């Protein structure tokens, strides 16, 4: 088909130009994930005052003792709560990172655990530090105070991740980095190259040649997908080297691309739309940053979107990046993605793509004709 063939011709051209400055493109694509994952991702390692909620169903002196021991060394910031429902609500709202439930049988329970711990790894607190401190306290408590009672051995503590496995902030941040690498890659490719084409006159040359205008857009999108996918692959490798986990395993990498590619298409279209209207690269860069950085910030890439002030919540809901970050986070942190999540996350992206593509084609015709 002529359209496909012309698109591939233009794609080939973009890639030839890309190849001529391959080294600088790759170096640029390494710097961003490297700084973000290695530097920012390391912050969670020295966290103090991890907020936890304790529900004391035991109401024994040992129980009070245990709670005050948990408050030692400033590792945890303990809040006492009356009911488990209340504590779980706090966990869901990201007010606390861990919930400790002390069962009535505390400190000993022959049939099973006497302490239940819930946590939510979509919070980026270093859960591991909190967990081990609680375990340590529980075992010390048992051995030191009440010799004859059954010591709540580590095996007696039931850990129930509400979501996620044992993850760090690095793992949390990873999804956001991948999305931003994709967005930057697509914008640089689609928008800046189009402004250059306008400037040099190459676009004029394409327009007067007997090809469809849509193939010019498709060529840019195809090259946007290829380039940003390369950048995502580099970011994944950097993540691996720095110890980021993808819980789903190798298949998860494919799933990551299932989210980065739609984002790449979407932002290539946005970049094309803006580049058609904006004559200079400097202005384009400023405007693009003014759009993408808030979107990124409000997408929950850095911190759980639940902790956003309510005034910003709509910007989180009507934000394509939210859905991509959410999708990738299910893959890397939960290890599975539900059909419902696929439908919502990819569905929103698909709608965004259709709208933006139609808009780009329309604008391309009216602006250039």
């Amino acid at each position, binding site marked *: 088909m002529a359209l496909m063939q012309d698109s591939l*011709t233009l794609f080939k*051209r973009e890639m030839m*130009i890309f190849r*001529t400055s391959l080294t600088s493109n790759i170096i640029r694509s390494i710097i961003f994930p490297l700084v973000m994952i290695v530097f920012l991702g390391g912050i969670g390692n020295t966290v103090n005052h991890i907020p936890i909620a304790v529900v004391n169903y035991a109401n024994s002196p040992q129980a009070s003792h245990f709670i005050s021991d948990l408050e030692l060394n400033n590792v945890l910031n303990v809040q006492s709560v009356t009911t488990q429902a209340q504590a779980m609500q706090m966990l869901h709202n990201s007010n606390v990172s861990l919930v400790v439930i002390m069962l009535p049988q505390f400190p000993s329970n022959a049939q099973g655990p006497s302490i239940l711990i819930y946590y939510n790894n979509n919070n980026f607190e270093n859960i591991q530090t909190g967990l081990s401190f609680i375990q340590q306290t529980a075992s010390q408590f048992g051995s030191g105070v009440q010799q004859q009672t059954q010591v709540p051995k580590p095996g007696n503590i039931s850990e129930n991740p509400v979501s996620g496995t044992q993850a760090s902030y690095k793992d949390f941040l990873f999804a956001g980095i991948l999305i931003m690498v994709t967005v930057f890659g697509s914008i640089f490719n689609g928008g800046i190259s189009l402004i250059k084409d306008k400037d*040099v006159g190459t676009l004029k040359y394409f327009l*007067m040649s007997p090809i469809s205008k849509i193939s010019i857009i498709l060529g840019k999108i195809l090259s946007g997908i290829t380039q940003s996918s390369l950048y995502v692959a580099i970011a994944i490798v950097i993540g691996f080297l720095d110890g980021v986990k993808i819980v789903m395993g190798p298949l998860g990498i494919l799933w990551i691309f299932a989210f980065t590619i739609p984002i790449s298409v979407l932002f290539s279209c946005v970049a094309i739309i803006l580049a058609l209207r904006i004559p200079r690269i400097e202005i384009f860069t400023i405007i693009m940053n003014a759009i993408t950085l808030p979107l990124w910030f409000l997408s929950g890439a850095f911190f759980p979107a639940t902790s956003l002030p309510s005034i910003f919540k709509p910007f989180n809901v009507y934000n394509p990046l939210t859905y991509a970050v959410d999708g990738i986070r299910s893959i890397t942190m939960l290890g599975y993605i539900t059909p419902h999540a696929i439908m919502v996350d990819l569905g929103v992206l698909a709608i965004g793509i259709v709208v933006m593509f139609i808009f780009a084609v329309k604008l391309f015709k009216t602006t250039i004709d």
Partner: protein
Amino acid sequence: MQPFVDVKNLRKLFGNFTAVDGISFSIGKGEIFGILGPNGAGKTTTISTILGIEKQTDGKIIVDGLDNLKHPKEVKQIIGFMAQETIVDNELTGRQNLALGADLYHIPKSEIPSKVSFALAESQLEKFADVKASNYSGGMKRRLYLVKSMLHEPKLLILDEPTTGLDIQNRVQMWKDIRKLKADGVTIILTTQYLEEADALCDNIAIIDHGKIIAMGTPSQLKKMIASGNVLEIITKTENVEQVRKMLKSKVGLNSTAVNDKIEAMVEKSPLDTFQKILEALKSSKVPVLSVSLRLPTLDDVFIKLTGASLRDAEQKADTTQSNKAVR
């Protein structure tokens, strides 16, 4: 015979601004047609509509019997274009640039290598075929661009100020190339700001101003429009200028003007006889004369007379400043 290019009542509006206002012209096959006009007259818009980059608001454009609105791709396939600026991908080599052009014009894959090497030979760029175009000189890039525009063997070639900014050698080469194309049967539309270029190359010329054709014809027809006569030009020593002017007045009855050492006068009737008389008078008066010539008015004279001498760039700038102020 049916004209090769037939433009009828072409109009193009940008919002409320009329860039082209009912232009009609036709060009025969193998003809060089010049479009002249001050900046902002509507030359580029006219060309862009023929190229299919802009869509006309009204009017018809027929190229080789094809309507540009009904058969846009077919029309584009037979048109080649060389813009004012040199459009080549600087990041790509000469060979890659040409191969890309060949792909865009749907030249069959099997023919591309031979066409590309022929084009490289034609532009004398074989040695630099695999060097990035960013390392080419201005003239080399221009040659690459010309062969790139001709790669699909267009029947109609549109040249927008092809020699602007070129040195003399490259300009002369370009004129040769254009004449060669004409000899090969290519129809050419040319815009230029060098009137001697239009005079030397074009079979027919249209002068456009404010989106309308204000004069059209062969170069000599246009020149005859402003004056039925010839221009006499005498160059002498500055101290003899007055003496010569007096002599022209008394011997042949000509009123003359002088700038430094150059004297000009309009010869209205029987130019050859008058010329002879002047020569004899000059000979007998023994005034030192460096040159005497009789020539037709140039296109410069026609152009200034028809479009006025004011600078359009300056006018336009003033307009934009005004409208910018209005926006603020």
